[in-house]
């Protein structure tokens, strides 16, 4: 809207100068009533023609589609603004235009529900949609899931390679920028991270602790590749080698060097700080154990003026896993935080409270009257998160025997300490083809859940793909998961793993790719 005002001012300035021009305004993603209103109010409507540029999903990789709209999260979940729904619904329609109408739809949360309704409404408008070939479809299931169904997962530190890259350097629309510390050269290098980079594809989903050994073996492998040149006998061989292998080797060599550099930087950063303790605190928060210690750790971080946003992330995690922080602790932590990082953070605290990310527990009058000891004794009451976590078996029983190298469970993405709630939930929905038996989980999570399943008898397999080739998973095993409000690389990794394990092909669509810090940055409010 401010932009509109600028445009209007610009035109008015031109007019005063006597410049006669017509203007074209390109509105992304579409023209809004309020924007046109401003142009009208400023008296410049007559000079402009308005065009729209629709935003659609951007394929970031072969299985990731993103709208790249990080502001979606704040706009809906904080401000209740539904203006972006249109874009999301339209993107779903566009997919279905290409792939056929998706027969089975499951949704969790308010936003999912509304997007689904809007999508259906838009589908019903004549001329906006013609489905390719009746009942055919190439995607069998659509799962819409609201970010607020699972805040815990993005709030945790990521420990997969891809996740760590995002946490440490920040991946922007699939691109990462490596600075001097990684490349060892003066200029920075911008790298596109996709599955086309062979080395990256192999390590992106790995737990960080196993990446190094892989890279070193890869390096040896490359060396033998290079060594082949000594064994070349004829000119023909030589030509072959130079033409095909060398190029490939060079390429891999380059990316290998970069990834090793990146690993080193990550390792350095993590060992310098108190990452270990941070992780330990996270894990015990997830388990709901050692609360006193956790709070002390948070307090220490505040007092020492460590990175405010990371500390805030821990506080949110504490609040999420405990249904809010007990009043006394909440107030003391908040005051100390404000004293350390400035009172302006009050604005952010308010937003977090509004979102339900960081809340103060309602003081029950009965608890108040009891002594402090009794209040603590009353605490072990299970929080919503703990209930869900138990029900879905999110926390593996023994961390010790967890094989991070050859994982057998999705929990490996968090060092075997925790399975992402969202992913586990998706697994369960797919296994049960709906919410039967999941009612008590769905009820605890915010918003409604719904499913719309086309009766089985009508199920037309996507073309004849299931008969012609057995390698391609049939349409009913293809699942489109749409995260409304963003998803993390860790979740993507977990879903990829789930897909391999259970024979699904997941396509992940999201409004943006996020992580704990990005999520909070959306909500942080600074005095303008």
């Amino acid at each position: 809207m401010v932009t509109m005002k600028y445009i209007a001012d610009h035109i008015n300035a031109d007019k005063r100068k006597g410049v006669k021009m017509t203007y074209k305004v390109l509105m992304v993603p579409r023209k809004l009533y309020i924007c046109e209103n401003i142009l009208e109010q400023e008296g410049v409507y007559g000079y402009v023609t308005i065009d729209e540029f629709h935003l659609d999903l951007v394929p970031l990789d072969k299985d990731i589609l993103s709208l790249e709209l990080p502001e979606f999260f704040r706009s809906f979940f904080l401000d209740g603004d539904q203006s972006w729904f249109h874009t999301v619904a339209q993107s779903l329609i566009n997919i279905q235009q290409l792939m056929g109408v998706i027969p089975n739809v499951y949704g969790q949360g308010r936003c999912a529900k509304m997007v689904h309704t809007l999508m259906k409404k838009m589908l019903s408008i004549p001329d906006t949609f013609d489905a390719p070939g009746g009942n055919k479809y190439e995607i069998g299931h659509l799962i819409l899931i609201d970010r607020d169904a699972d805040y815990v997962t993005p709030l945790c530190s990521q420990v997969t390679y891809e996740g760590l890259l995002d946490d440490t350097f920040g991946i922007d629309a699939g691109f990462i920028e490596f600075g001097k510390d990684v490349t060892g050269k003066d200029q920075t290098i911008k790298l596109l991270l996709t599955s086309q980079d062979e080395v990256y594809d192999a390590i992106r989903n790995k737990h960080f602790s196993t990446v190094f050994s892989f890279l070193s073996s890869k390096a040896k492998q490359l060396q033998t590749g290079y060594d082949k040149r000594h064994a070349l006998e004829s000119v023909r061989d030589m030509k072959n080698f130079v033409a095909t292998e060398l190029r490939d080797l060079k390429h891999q060599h380059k990316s290998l060097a970069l990834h090793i550099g990146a690993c080193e930087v990550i390792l350095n950063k993590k060992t310098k700080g108190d990452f270990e303790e941070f992780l330990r605190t996270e894990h015990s928060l997830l388990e709901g154990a050692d609360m006193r210690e956790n709070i002390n750790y948070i307090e220490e971080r505040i007092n020492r003026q460590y990175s405010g946003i990371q500390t805030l992330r821990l506080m949110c995690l504490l609040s999420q896993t405990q249904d809010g922080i007990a009043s006394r602790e909440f107030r003391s932590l908040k005051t100390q935080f404000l004293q350390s990082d400035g009172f302006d953070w009050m604005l952010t605290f308010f937003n977090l409270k509004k979102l339900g990310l960081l809340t103060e527990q309602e003081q029950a009058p009965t608890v108040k009257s009891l002594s402090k000891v009794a209040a603590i004794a009353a605490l072990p009451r299970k929080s919503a998160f703990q209930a869900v976590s138990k029900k879905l078996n999110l926390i593996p029983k023994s961390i010790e025997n967890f094989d991070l190298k050859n994982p057998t469970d999705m929990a490996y993405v968090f060092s075997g300490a925790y399975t992402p709630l969202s992913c586990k939930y998706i697994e369960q929905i797919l296994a049960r083809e709906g919410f039967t038996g999941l009612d008590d989980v769905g009820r605890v999570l915010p918003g409604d859940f719904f499913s719309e399943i086309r009766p089985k008898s009508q199920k037309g397999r996507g073309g004849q793909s299931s008969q012609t080739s057995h390698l391609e998973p049939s349409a009913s095993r293809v699942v489109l998961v749409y995260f409304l409000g963003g998803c993390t690389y860790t979740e993507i990794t977990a879903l990829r793993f789930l897909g391999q394990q259970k024979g699904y092909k997941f396509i992940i669509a999201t409004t943006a790719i996020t992580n704990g810090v990005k999520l909070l940055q959306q909500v942080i409010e600074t005095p303008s």
Partner: protein
Amino acid sequence: MCVDVSDHRWRYNFKMALSARNKLSVDEDESYWNTSQISQSTKKFNFDDDVHEEWDTAKRFSKSAMKDLPFEEHEDVINWDGSATSDAVAFKSARYRPPAEVAGSAPTGRQGGDLKAKNVLTGKMEADTRPSTTCITHSKEHDRKPLAMTHSRSASLTLGKTSDSDLSSSLRNHQTSVPNFTGSQPGIDDIVHHKKTQQTATEIAKLESEVNFLRRAHARQDRWTKLEPKETVKQIIKGEIYSLELYKSKEDKVAFLDAAIESHDGNAITAAVLYLRNTVKKSIFNQELMERAVAVSHYLQYLKLHYDFSELLDMLGMLGRNEEAAILKYKQSVAATNPEVKLRNLQTCYRTHFETDSSISHDAGHVKQQIELLERQLPIEKSDKQMELEGRTRIFKEHPRKASVLDTSVITTLYYCCFYHYDLSENSLACPSAICKKHGLTDKQFMWVALSARSRIRDWKGIEALFTTKNWYGGTKMKAVIGFEKVAEVLHKTGAPPDAISKYLRLVDDSDKKLELGKKYKCHEVVIDTLVANREKGELQAYQQKLVPHTVEFYYAADALRNSSIKWKS
């Protein structure tokens, strides 16, 4: 259904179309042709079913179709076809026939359509006359080539593909809106069928351009008919041109708002809310808005984006969202860059929004603290700046100030004061302990800050004093609330030499920890002593190997190893 009757009806419809041709858009004629041909060739004109299926769309267009027949042009009709006179008259009366009569012969569904159409006619008379102007200009062209116009099969086919389904259905609607008519005129359709093969490319092109023109005209005409709120919302969703002007009654406006909310399209909701705001008085607007939470949030969002803060504050107040209002006011207050202005703003904000509301007393405390902090920082900054400029005070010379203390947090201010004003008496503004008292800081908060500040300034005595507590007997005891291992860590981080660290490292109870930290911070004596205490000869020997020969610690380790009084393990 009887084929005969339907045929009659069809003929009638055709005739109607012809008779009304001058007023109707050609476009509609075309589509009419299209539909009638299709229905003839495919089925035996299952008219009623058709109507039922298309009822929804038909309903909407009954209005636009009706008003395409302005009264002034009935003369034309008579000229064209003698019997049409009665048709036209009857038609006119058919429109005004009481619904009960209509129901007698028409399928029940149509009745509503007639009623609707009538409502529009009576309600919007002035609107009816307007569109005829466009039609009249057009009718001239009609006169030049009377029949050929409507008979293009190929043209109608292309049309069928490209034309709005809106238009074709509007024509079908002609069939429904004038239902109980059975005047038959044989022969016309024969002529029509006969001629339809004669078409040239130019004619088609002409027709097409005409169609386009009329389609635009049609869109313009929509403006004068009140659409169902749902339809308007659909137009908004599709990004078409729409008009809200015809929603005059409050009920209509509210219905439109509800339709927008139901659609979940934010843009439509905002449009509906703003339209409501601009057209009804404030009290009604507020009342309707309050009943719809979604509308409220969109309105608030709009105000926020519009920087209309006074209205936003009013709204929040009305909604009883005091905390949000207070926070908003606070946000505005702290936006000031000049500290003095900021202080004044905060004071007003505190008085008006925070002081009185007990539900946000916790945050009120914070605002108060911020005010007090600013009140403290201002004079400190002033005098320190002066001192720095004069350059007579040693500490400012040795450690020039990196930044102003203004607008920093409590802890940073405390650090600043611990750094520059550690020894001031308690009644001075810049005294650290006075700050602690005022802001209710905990011992831990103070300890962390004081420790790192004094360590930076190499004030080892001051640090020692921090941990020294006197007990009852006058003896002294070392104690640190944050634990000595953390003390050592802070000292190390602030660049203290190993000797200074060692002193406190020795006070760590856990010997394993002591060993680990000692190695990390290179406090060799502590490591050696610990190893001796643990009687670990092997480890000590290994450690000695790592030390640089001929240094103090090397000899210290050698001494310990040579000491015969130590009973080594195994």
